[in-house]
């Protein structure tokens, strides 16, 4: 092969591959949501997730909206659970 062909094949092709990969990696905008890292403050508003209403056998209406007229059945029974920190 001539010198030009040699350079094109052994330098040009790897260079082209590197350029294509660099474009694919660095050009897309990146995460819209910042990744959570422990130690960062939590800036989002508090949010509460509940299961699908059909999942529980008894009728469970959204409780937080009905806070004004929910009858508090808290009988003082001890609550269980666990706690963890990191």
């Amino acid at each position: 092969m001539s010198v030009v062909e040699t350079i094109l094949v052994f330098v040009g092709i790897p260079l082209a591959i590197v350029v294509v990969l660099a474009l694919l990696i660095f050009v897309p905008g990146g995460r819209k949501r910042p990744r959570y890292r422990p130690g960062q403050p939590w800036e989002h508003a508090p949010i509460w997730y509940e299961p699908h209403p059909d999942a529980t056998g008894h009728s469970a209406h959204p409780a937080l909206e009905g806070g004004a007229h929910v009858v508090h059945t808290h009988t003082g029974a001890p609550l269980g659970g666990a706690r963890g920190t990191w």
Partner: protein
Amino acid sequence: MRTTIEQDADVDGMAAPEAFPEDQRLDSIFSWQELARLDEALTMSSRETGLRFTLYIGDLGTPTRTQAEAMHARSGDDPSEAVLIALSPGQRVVEVVTGAAAARRLPDRACALAVLSMTVSFAAGDLVGGIVNGLRQLSDQAGHPASLRHPY
């Protein structure tokens, strides 16, 4: 004057995500895929065990346990059968609160095991994975409700 949100909502009952300001969008904290995973985990755990699992993510004040227990009491019709996972990433605390009936099926040591695996995931930055695995562990420990057990 009708707003964009109302006009869009009439079409199929849901408003387009672009209609909300940036920080009110439903996917501002978790992506839609992550929200689907959370929804599935909460719903499946609740359905399999018959207990009502809910999840709170936000600040818990001080002391965190008191606030978590107050939220648990307001989490539904029957707090005795409810389990609340309260997660405060800013304070790096997770509280699991079980009602009286739920605690009979989910003793504190089972909750502590789930919390341990959850904190390991959270420390690595994986909130959704930690929550989903914690819910799976809790529902495995709680088992099926008594009415579904066959009297062999």
